[in-house]
């Protein structure tokens, strides 16, 4: 038992996840009816009922203290429970086991387990679960209206069974809390050209209700409202694109052949819907999404169309036909190919100005609550499963702690933390913006660190109002 002699670290893990509605089984003996979804599903019925009942009791009990703000989470030694009521009487609960360290004991005694109790950035995770469900299924009550409890349960089962598998609690960090959007820097003229393109497309293809634009996984334009865009962006960057980029990378030796529409070459293709327009068997099914509209929610179809790194997704209101897709392909493809080369040119210019891709001078995370803009020089690449950061996880935890502190107060503040191993972590909050900087300077003192952060603000955030 060589390995047994070492400490074993356990990352937080999901113990259970359930959704219930207390009004569905108010009488004794009908408790099971409250439960709409329970993970893991193989738990014995009575235990399910017990756990749900416990949550219900906690929420009810705490409500007496603060009727407007019910309890959000319950921390125990071994685990944490998070409560969230996304729609009236519908509760989502997530139970997570605390991270722990298992220290082996000699003499065959059972190992000592130490649970860690640092802040966990998980409440946002629950909200994201709900938003993602809502994006593809609409609200809970919508399913109730359409097909009663049975339909809702079916939908929940279908969605969360898959979704929970993609949940990676251990890699959850500050960026997941923010749920921000990375914007692509672009000059005014190119931006206006894109505007012009978007307007023309929406005018000539009246089925298209909204358009959004991304380059290199960074947002350029969104016709959708901010909240819808936020979750859709999350879906695109963490789920849809990684799925599609892998085959593309693999098949590098077979270059994509340009499509010829009219007399213009173009490289456009659909990421959702038909993979090949020429294929007579092609299916013209696009994922349905639900976005907010003036009167509640509207059901739309998501068309994702891509040229090189430039991606335009269009959202149409009705079922789409082959004719429509062909029309779209011939209209959007050539124009988008031109725009893509314009933007690509800018991209290379920008990169040349900012120098070759070296280790960034400053390691920072920036987030603006107002437009959800995020910027990180810490994260190398982020996908659903792996999150490559260039700093130690302990430092990331400090960032999380600072963020929790910021969330508690409304005023602007600044927190400077001296971490182990010569690192300084600085958190700044100014109006709706947050900035986290990680500095590694041997023997630096507080004043020097402060100066360094000022320097960063002056160079990187010159064009925004940041209080010193």
């Amino acid at each position, binding site marked *: 038992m060589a390995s047994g002699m070492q400490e074993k670290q356990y990352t937080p893990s999901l113990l259970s996840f359930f959704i219930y509605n207390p009004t569905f089984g108010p009488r004794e003996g009908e408790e099971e009816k409250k439960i709409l979804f329970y993970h893991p599903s193989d738990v014995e019925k009575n235990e399910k009922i017990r756990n749900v009942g416990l949550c219900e009791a906690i929420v009810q009990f705490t409500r007496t203290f603060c009727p407007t703000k019910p309890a959000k989470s319950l921390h125990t030694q071994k685990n944490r429970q998070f409560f969230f009521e996304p729609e009236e009487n519908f509760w989502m609960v997530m139970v997570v086991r605390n991270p722990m360290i298992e220290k082996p004991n000699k003499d065959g005694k059972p190992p000592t387990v130490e649970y860690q109790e640092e802040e966990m950035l998980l409440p946002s995770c629950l909200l994201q679960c709900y938003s993602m469900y809502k994006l593809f299924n609409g609200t809970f009550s919508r399913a109730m209206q359409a097909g009663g409890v049975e339909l809702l349960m079916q939908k929940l089962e279908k969605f969360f069974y898959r979704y929970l598998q993609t949940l990676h609690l251990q890699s959850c960090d500050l960026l997941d809390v923010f749920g921000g959007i990375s914007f692509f820097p672009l000059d005014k003229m190119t931006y206006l050209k894109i505007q012009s393109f978007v307007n023309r497309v929406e005018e000539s293809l009246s089925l298209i209700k909204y358009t959004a634009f991304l380059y290199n996984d960074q947002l350029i334009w969104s016709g959708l409202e901010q909240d819808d865009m936020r979750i859709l962006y999350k879906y695109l960057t963490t789920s849809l694109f990684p799925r599609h980029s892998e085959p593309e990378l693999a098949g590098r030796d077979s270059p994509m052949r340009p499509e010829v529409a009219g007399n213009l070459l173009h490289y456009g293709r659909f990421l959702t819907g038909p993979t090949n327009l020429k294929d007579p068997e092609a299916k013209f099914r696009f994922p349905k999404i639900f976005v907010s509209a003036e009167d509640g929610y509207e059901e739309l179809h998501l068309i994702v169309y891509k040229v090189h790194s430039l991606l335009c997704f269009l959202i149409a209101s009705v079922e789409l036909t082959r004719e429509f897709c062909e029309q779209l392909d011939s209209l959007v493809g050539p124009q988008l190919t031109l725009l893509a080369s314009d933007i690509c040119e800018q991209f290379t210019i920008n990169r040349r100005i900012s120098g070759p891709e070296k280790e960034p001078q400053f390691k920072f995370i920036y987030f603006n609550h107002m437009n959800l*803009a995020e910027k990180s020089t810490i994260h190398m690449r982020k996908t659903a499963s792996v999150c490559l950061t260039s700093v130690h996880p302990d430092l990331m935890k400090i960032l999380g702690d600072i963020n929790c502190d910021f969330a508690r107060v409304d005023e602007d503040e600044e927190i400077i933390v001296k971490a182990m191993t010569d690192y300084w972590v600085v958190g700044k909050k100014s*109006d709706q913006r947050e900035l986290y900087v990680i500095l590694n300077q041997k023997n630096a003192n507080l004043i020097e660190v402060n100066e360094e952060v000022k320097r960063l603000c002056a160079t990187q955030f010159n*064009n925004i109002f940041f209080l010193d």
Partner: protein
Amino acid sequence: MAEEHYLELSENPVQFEHASSVNNVFFDEANKQVFAVRSGGATGVVVKGPDDKSSVAFRMDDKGEVKCIKFSIGNKILAVQRTSKSVDFINFIPDYPHTEFSQECKTKNANILGFCWTNWNEVVFITDQGIEFYQVFPDKRSLKLLKSQSINVNWYQYCPETAVILLSTTVQGNILQPFAFRNGTMSKMSKFEIELPVVPKPAKLSLSERDIAMATIYGQLYVMYLKHHSRTANSPSAEVVLYHLSREGSCKKSHVLKLNTTGKFALNIVDNLVVVHHQSSQTSLIFDIKLKEPDCALNIHQPVLPARSIHPYRIPLSGPAAVPSQPPVPCQLYSSSWSVFQPDIIISASEGYLWYLQVKLPPTVNLLQDKGKLMDFLLRRRECKMVILSVCAQILEVGEKGSLPVVATVFDKLNQVYKDYLEAEQSYTQAMESGPSRGSAAQKRPVRTQAVIDQSDMYTHVLSSFTERKGVSHKFIIAVLMEYIRSLNQFQITVQHYLYELVIKTLVQHNLFYMLHQFLQYHVLSDSKPLACLLLSLESTYPPAHQLSLDMLKRLSTANDEIIEVLLSKQQVLGALRFIRSVGGHDNASARKFLDAAQQTGDQMLFYTVFRSFQQRNQRLRGSPAFNPDPA
């Protein structure tokens, strides 16, 4: 039916006594004067010009039938040709002897075909054997031959604007020899040949002077040749061939105007358009030689618009004969008694009218469906501004599917002209600032033509009413505004604040704050203090506007005072204090303002902090923590 006549006769024609057995009528193209000569001048000569100043009436002795009669420029000297051998002159300069003097042509046995004044005292005789260029000395009542050139002449044409005389030479008459006159000099330009549709055998005069006209179009001199169709040559219809006559160098065939019909034609030039009247169909065509035909290589032009007749004209009955109840008499258009002169004159000698031909732009709008082409056409016309603006309004009004690309094209065309003008204006200002340059002549201030449609024109006449109209989708409104801003940016024209205001107003009206936010994020709406203030005012409906506004003020870097005010109004006293320190305005800051704001928060600790901060400042500046008495 919508008004479709795009040509009309001027409303106030020049009236003169119509031609009759006792009254001969002459027209001088140079001064645009009509001479009505009664009984050889004995019972009077009435000269009517385009304005009253150039109208004269006088008497002269009847010395035989007048063949031609013309004033020199400025009505200084009158020249009358009565025989084919000589021209008589009469001084009209006060204090100079009024008796006639005469000049015979120098060439023996030559017949004078006509004469032209090239200056107030310079005259050219054109004879069948050459030309003779004279200077007239009215005081001495004599002429001096400056230059002559002998050459066989069939007929001649004169373009007074450029003082160029064109001679038809050789037997067939199709070799044209131009001469240019300027300040007492005569220069022979290179001759050129008009390609005849059929070469007659035996050779005979085949080019009629009726088929040749000279005129300046877009500042360039052209010889226009009306090439009739011929059954033998393979030309199904008539065409007008334009030869560009440059002062230096040769004459080149430059444009071909396709008439697509046959018959009798006459040419006019109006507003740089070539107007071709077709008598048998009683319609006219117009051509714009600057309008490029997309699929024709060699400047072959089709009519800009479908053929239409000149707008019906009624002759108002005037004078003592007029009876109020009598309706005006319709005038017969395209009458065979009409004579057409360059550039834009139509004379009916039998009725006694001289009209200027005019182009009416409004009817063209409905006749030309291609809006891009229509804009190209309109932008080159003189009185185009209101028509262009109405076209813009019309495109937006229809708002039919696919009109955005059209809107974009139209905006780009307008802004190209606008930009050219701004650039010319700028380089003029620069030249003026750097002082009068040596060598090159003083730069002329660029003329602002009606085609320069600036942002305020667009705003006042098109955009502001468009955005307020009911029933237009806001999506379309925003698309149009963005398209206009895009076009301005493309031509690097600074966008005026009121356009941004219009965009913001529209977005706010429809709660499209996120869109507005994105526009600001990408600096599509350029930073300015008024814009920042406008954003501040939106804060109550859209809280992020506060941040956007502060960012903008920060970027302006001239708005530190405003930033302080905003922060203080938000009771962010410490923030304001830290900000003013960071920009180095602490020493001059008004302590009262900050202390007032601190007091209003009701936070005593804050007030104390601010107070101490200013005390320390005073200590540092003046060696004492005391405050200076408030000057107010």
